[in-house]
C-alpha cells in the first residue's frame, strides 16, 4: 500500500480550502423568521354555526330537479395539538394521562375527515421548555393549553394569533356564554388571543385547617360568607400556627419561596402588593411606582414574615416550589398563597396516592386585603392558545378546532376537577347548588386581577424575583429592594 505524502504546503492548501468552504456555508441567508400572518379577514365564514341546507322536497309535476351539486372537497389539513397530562379527565388515568385527548382527537377527526391532528403530550415540568425550543425552531404547536403564566409569557413573546375577527363572528349566545372576565383575560389592547377554557382563579389561598385545629386557632379563620380577612388577621393566624411538634417537626404559618427559573411563576406572591393597593406596574401608563408606600409595605411584610415574626422558614432567597410542596405535604405549612380550590378538590386523589396523609383538610379563602383596598385575586384563566399561523390556508381549521375544544359539551369534562369553567352554562349545569362554586362566582370572579401582558413582562417578573432574593439575602432593605425593582421595571418599560 502506498503511503500518503502530505507535505506542509499541500496540507495548508487543503486546510485553507476547507476553511473557505466553512465560511461560505455559514454566511448563507440569515435565518430570518417571517412575521406571523394576520388573522383572517372579517368576512371569513364561521364554519361551526351554519346549519346544513334543508333537504329538497320531491319535485312538483315535471319540474326538472336540478342535479345536486357536491360541496367542494375541503383541503386536507394537519393540526398540531399539544397538551399537558389530564389524568383526571375522561378516560384519563395515571398510566394514560392523555386518554381524554386521544378520545377527542378520534371524535373530531371523525366529524372532520379532512383534518389530521398530531397530538403531543408534554409534562408539566418540561413542557414549557419544550415549547420554547419548538417555537425557536419554528416547530411549535397550532393549539395548546396555556395555564395563566404560560399564556402571559406567550403573549409577551408575540407568538399567538389574533383571533378577534374570528371571535366576532361567533353567535352572540355562544360568545356571551363565556364569562366576560375570561374574555378580558385573553385580550390584550383590544385583541383576543385565545379561547378561555379553565376559570381557575388560582389566587385563592388555601388554609390547612387540620393544622389550625392542632394549634387551637379555629377562631382566627376567615369566616363565611366571603372568607375575607385582613393582613393583621393573617399574621395572627400565622403566629398561632407556628410551633414545633413533639417529634421535632417545625410547623410554619406559611412558606415563602423566591427561587424559580422564571419570575412569573412567583405570581402567587403578588397577593402581597395587592393587599395594600400596589401593583408591579401599570400596563396603561407603562410605568411602575412600586417604590411608593404601598409597594414598600408589601415587601416589608414579606421580609418580616421570615425575619421578624419568624412565621415562615428562613432561606426564602433560595427556597423553591419543591421545598414548599414538601412542607405542605408533610403538614408543616399552614397557609398556601394560591390554588385553594384546586388543592381542596385534589385532596382525595393525593391521599389515595400517598402524597399526603389523612387527616388533611383545606379551606379556600380570599387573599387578605387591607381595609379600604380593593380585593384582588390573582387571575387564572386557562387558555386554549392559538399560535400564530404562517399558513393562512389552515387558519380556519385551527380556529375551528380550538373553538370546538372549548364548546359547552367538551367543557363538561371539568365536572371531574372543578365545577367552575369558562362557560356560564356548563358551570351552572355542573355546579347546581354547590356552595363553593357559588362563593367563587360571587366573591372571587368579580375581583379577578389579570396578569400583565406587556412584552417586557418576562423580564419585569424576573426583576421582581431578583429584588425579593436580594432583600431576603440581606443585600437590600425592603425599601431599597422595592425601589430597585421600580427602577428596573421602568427601565424595561421605557426601553432605556
Amino acid at each position: 500500500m502506498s503511503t500518503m505524502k502530505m507535505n506542509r504546503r499541500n496540507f495548508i492548501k487543503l486546510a485553507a480550502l476547507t476553511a473557505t468552504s466553512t465560511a461560505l456555508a455559514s454566511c448563507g441567508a440569515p435565518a430570518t423568521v417571517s412575521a406571523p400572518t394576520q388573522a383572517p379577514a372579517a368576512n371569513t365564514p364561521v364554519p361551526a354555526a351554519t346549519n346544513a341546507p334543508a333537504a329538497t322536497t320531491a319535485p312538483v309535476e315535471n319540474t326538472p330537479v336540478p342535479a345536486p351539486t357536491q360541496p367542494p372537497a375541503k383541503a386536507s389539513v394537519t393540526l398540531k395539538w399539544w397538551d399537558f397530562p389530564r389524568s383526571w379527565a375522561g378516560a384519563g388515568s395515571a398510566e394514560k394521562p392523555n386518554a381524554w385527548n386521544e378520545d377527542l382527537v378520534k371524535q373530531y377527526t371523525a366529524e372532520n375527515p379532512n383534518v389530521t391532528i398530531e397530538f403531543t403530550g408534554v409534562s408539566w415540568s418540561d413542557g414549557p421548555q419544550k415549547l420554547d425550543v419548538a417555537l425557536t425552531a419554528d416547530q411549535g404547536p397550532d393549539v395548546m393549553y396555556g395555564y395563566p403564566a404560560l399564556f402571559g409569557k406567550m403573549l409577551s413573546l408575540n407568538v399567538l394569533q389574533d383571533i378577534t375577527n374570528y371571535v366576532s363572528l361567533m353567535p352572540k349566545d355562544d360568545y356571551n356564554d363565556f364569562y366576560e372576565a375570561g374574555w378580558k383575560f385573553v385580550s390584550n389592547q383590544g385583541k383576543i388571543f385565545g379561547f378561555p377554557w379553565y376559570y381557575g382563579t388560582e389566587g385563592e389561598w388555601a388554609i390547612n385547617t387540620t393544622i389550625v385545629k392542632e394549634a387551637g386557632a379555629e377562631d382566627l379563620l376567615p369566616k363565611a360568607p366571603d372568607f375575607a380577612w385582613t393582613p393583621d388577621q393573617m399574621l395572627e393566624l400565622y403566629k398561632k400556627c407556628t410551633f414545633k411538634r413533639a417529634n421535632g417537626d417545625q410547623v410554619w404559618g406559611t412558606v415563602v419561596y423566591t427561587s424559580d427559573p422564571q419570575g412569573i411563576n412567583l405570581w402567587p406572591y403578588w397577593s402581597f402588593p395587592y393587599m395594600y393597593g400596589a401593583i408591579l406596574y401599570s400596563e396603561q401608563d407603562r410605568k411602575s411606582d412600586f417604590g411608593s408606600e404601598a409597594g414598600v409595605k408589601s415587601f416589608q411584610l414579606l421580609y418580616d414574615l421570615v425575619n421578624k415574626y419568624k412565621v415562615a422558614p428562613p432561606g426564602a432567597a433560595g427556597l423553591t416550589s419543591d421545598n414548599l410542596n414538601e412542607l405542605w405535604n408533610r403538614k408543616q405549612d399552614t397557609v398556601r398563597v394560591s390554588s385553594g380550590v384546586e388543592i381542596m378538590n385534589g385532596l382525595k386523589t393525593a391521599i389515595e396516592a400517598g402524597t399526603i396523609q389523612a387527616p388533611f383538610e383545606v379551606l379556600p379563602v380570599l387573599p387578605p386585603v387591607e381595609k379600604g383596598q380593593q380585593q384582588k385575586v390573582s387571575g387564572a384563566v386557562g387558555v386554549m392558545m392559538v399560535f400564530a399561523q404562517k399558513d393562512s390556508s389552515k387558519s380556519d381549521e385551527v380556529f375551528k378546532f380550538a373553538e370546538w375544544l372549548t364548546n359547552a359539551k367538551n367543557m363538561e369534562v371539568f365536572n371531574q376537577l372543578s365545577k367552575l369553567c369558562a362557560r356560564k352554562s356548563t358551570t351552572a349545569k355542573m355546579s347546581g347548588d354547590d356552595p363553593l362554586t357559588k362563593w367563587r362566582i360571587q366573591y372571587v370572579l368579580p375581583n379577578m386581577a389579570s396578569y400583565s401582558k406587556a412584552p417586557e413582562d418576562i423580564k419585569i417578573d424576573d426583576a421582581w424575583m431578583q429584588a425579593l432574593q436580594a432583600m431576603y439575602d440581606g443585600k437590600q432593605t425592603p425599601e431599597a429592594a422595592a425601589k430597585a425593582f421600580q427602577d428596573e421595571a421602568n427601565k424595561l418599560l421605557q426601553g432605556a
Partner: protein
Amino acid sequence: MNSAKFHMPSHSLLREIRKNLWIYLVLIPPFALLLIFTLIPIVQSFLLSFKEWTLHSTRWIGLANFTHLVADPVFGKALLNTAIYTAVVVPTGTAIALFLAELVRPQPAAVQTFFKSAFYLPAVVAAVVIVLVWRWIYNPANYGLLNYLLSLFHKDPVLWLQDSRLALAALTATSLVGGQGGAVVFILAAMGGIPIHLYESARLDGSTRSKEFWYITLPLITPTLLYLAVMGTIGSFQVFTGTYLLTNGGPNYATTTSVFYIYKTGFQHFEFGYASVQAIVLFLIIMACSAFLFKMLSEEFEY
C-alpha cells in the same frame, strides 16, 4: 487586458488526493458532522452576536450587544462565580484523584480493578440523577441527609443552598465528591507506565514511599495531570446542570454561572443575539486558558 489570476489546486495535491482517495472518503462523514454541528454553528453564533434576534425577526445592531455585555453586572458575576468554581474544582479534584490513585496503585490487580470500577461508576450515571440526589442531601429541613446528621448532634439545620454565602461551595462540593472516577483511571494508567526499575533503584538507595511519590511518580505523570487540568478547566467553565437543577442561579445570583446565564438569556428571555455574545466571550476565555495550559504541556520529560 489583465485577467484575474486564479490558481487551481496544484497537480501534486490532486494527485495525492486521488492516490489516497479512500482515506478522504472515510474522513468525510465525521468531518461533515463536525462541520454541521460544531464549526458552522460557531461561525453563525459569532455572526449572531452582532444582531438582535427574537422569535420573529433579526436586525443588525453592530457592537450594541458587546457594549451591553461590558455594562452587565450579572455577566460579570457569572464569570466570577465560574472562575471561582473552576479554580477550586480543577486543582482540588485533580489532587483528590491523585491521592486515590496513589492509594490504589500498590494494591493487587483484582483489588485495583474493583476500586477503579467503583470510582468510575458515577461517571456512567446521568448527571441529572446525581444532582437530584444532592438536592435531597442538601434539603434545608431536618430530613435532608446532611441536616439530619447535624440534628443527631443537636445542631440547627444549615441552609446549604439557600444561603448565598454557602450555595456556591455546596454546588462545588457536588462536583468534587464522587466525580473523580475518570481522572483516577487516567492517573492509574499513567502510573502503570512508569518503569518498575526506577522504584527498585530508589528503594536500593534507601528511598521512602513518599520520596518515591514526589521524585519519581509525580514528575513522570505530570503530562497526564496537565491533560486532566486542561480538560477539567474546559469542563468546569461549562458547569450548568447543578446550577439549573439545584439553585436556578440563586440565591441572589450567588450560583449563576456563565453557561446558566447564557441559557437564561437565550431560552428564557429569548435574546439570542446577546446570548451569542456571552458564548463568544466564554469561548475566548476557555481558549486562552487552554492555550496557557497547553504551553505548559509542551515541556518534554525523559526517563
